[in-house]
């Protein structure tokens, strides 16, 4: 029978040849067999196995000792462990946040439980500056069309933008984490994310707003609302799919309330940014009665004349 043939002892051709050549040597593993170097490898392997065992032992003890000595929060090394990411990893995480899939939690699949602080911090910084700059650019473009609008650099908006974005991206995860911990105390079966993982999820979910804000430069209202809604949907979906495995164990009411509050806060942020930084243009130009300068066709600089005349 075929099965019996397979079970019978098969002598390998190579091994028999080599044994014939060097009858005193023992055969080693097949991956170490080579026609020329065979003798040398066989003789060394006996000695090296002992050394390998010793090395493995010392490695194990070293690893255990390293695990025990985690650096304290006052050392630089503690914070360095949160920046232990490569360029490719950050780009993968950003891509993962742009395309959320149901059932794929961002924490499990992208972070693999190794959160980093680089992404959230610099995404928030970029978003704050992009908001302030594009808001100012909108005013510049509006002034170009209608020279009676006074253009100014509006530098205070940078402060407002950065405070808003950073508070949102760090305080809301803190509240969420605290709430989840409290619920875990009530219901034991719930899962839990660490504070840093929550901050990471929120930080990476804000990335999709950066291209959206740049798109808001185009002064077409339906396009602005459409891109805003799309960005909000993607971002909120990412958050919901990440939080779902954790709140699934909780009562339906609590889970529903939590998820809807998360989505609502996100929507409030998006709309607040849209209205504050991209104020809709006034329906009629606020022209002072003494304005005598005829608007040149393509002026880009603010007319200093109306202000001094109106003052």
């Amino acid at each position: 029978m075929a099965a019996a043939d397979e079970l019978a002892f098969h002598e390998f051709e190579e091994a028999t040849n080599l044994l014939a050549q060097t009858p005193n040597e023992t055969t080693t593993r097949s991956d170490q067999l080579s026609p020329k170097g065979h003798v040398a490898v066989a003789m060394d392997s006996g000695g090296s196995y002992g050394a390998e065992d010793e090395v493995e032992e010392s490695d194990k003890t070293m690893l255990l000792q390293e695990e025990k000595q985690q650096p304290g929060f006052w050392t630089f090394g503690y914070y360095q462990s949160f920046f232990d990411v490569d360029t490719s990893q950050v780009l993968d995480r950003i891509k993962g946040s742009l395309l959320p899939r149901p059932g794929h939690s961002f924490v499990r699949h992208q972070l693999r439980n190794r959160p980093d602080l680089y992404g959230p911090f610099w995404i928030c910084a970029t978003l704050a500056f992009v908001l302030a700059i594009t808001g100012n650019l909108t005013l510049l473009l509006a002034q170009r069309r209608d020279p009676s609008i006074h253009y100014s650099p509006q530098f205070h908006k940078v402060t407002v933008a950065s405070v808003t974005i950073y508070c949102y991206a760090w305080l809301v995860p803190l509240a969420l984490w605290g709430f989840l911990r409290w619920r875990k105390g009530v219901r034991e079966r719930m899962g839990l994310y660490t504070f840093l993982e929550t901050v990471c999820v929120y930080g990476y979910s804000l990335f999709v707003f950066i291209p959206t804000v740049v798109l808001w430069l185009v002064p077409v209202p339906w396009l602005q609302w459409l891109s805003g809604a799309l960005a909000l949907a993607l971002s909120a979906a990412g958050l919901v799919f990440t939080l779902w495995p954790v709140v699934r164990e909780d009562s339906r009411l609590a889970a529903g309330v939590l998820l809807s509050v998360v989505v609502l806060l996100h929507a409030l942020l998006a709309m607040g940014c849209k209205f504050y930084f991209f104020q809709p243009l006034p329906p009629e130009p606020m022209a002072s009665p003494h304005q005598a300068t005829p608007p040149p066709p393509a002026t880009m600089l603010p007319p200093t004349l109306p202000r001094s005349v109106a003052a």
Partner: protein
Amino acid sequence: MAEAVESPGDPETTTSRPLFAGLSDISISQDIPVEGEITIPVRSRIREFDSSTLNESVQNTIMRDLKAVGKKFMHVLYPRKSNTLLRDWDLWGPLILCVTLALMLQRGSVDSEKDGGPQFAEVFVIVWFGAVTITLNSKLLGGNISFFQSLCVLGYCILPLTMAMLVCRLVLLAEPGPINFMVRLFVVIIMFAWSIVASTAFLADSQPPNRKALAVYPVFLFYFVISWMILTFTPQ
């Protein structure tokens, strides 16, 4: 295993003997002098140098520091692979550049309106806290550059943008118009690219190779914000 020292006169006796057994066989010839003085001329020179900087005139001290700052300016303007900025770092150049830029960027005190350009303090804070944040970021990512070396490089590489600010102020004295804006835009873009190239030439080598982009991106953001402030400067 220690082997016995071979006595120089007997090359045939190579059998193993206890250590230093052959020393008694060596005789020291009388005409090799083994006495004398050991002086280290370098030490006395350093002592001389230290006391001389205390006694030199103020003009010498200032000129030496100014020459060091000027030399580093040249290294920024013509970025080559040299270590001068990193080795002899100083913070005079960044301070001079930051104060010049902030003085030129601030809006006049007559304007009491809230939305205007940045104040002196805002520019100062952005430049210095931005530089500190980028330095901390690159150190946390595992770069092997020291804190002040990185501050020095980032501060010196603001020089092209300060020159752009000077040019913009001169161009703004002319009549306003689209050509005016185009000229300023062109100058700021060129100087922004120059700053990025200069700072990357010095900073990129200190990072591990798979994290270079992560360390360079904040530098890009920093100089972009400064360029934006320069471009939107409007005189009152």
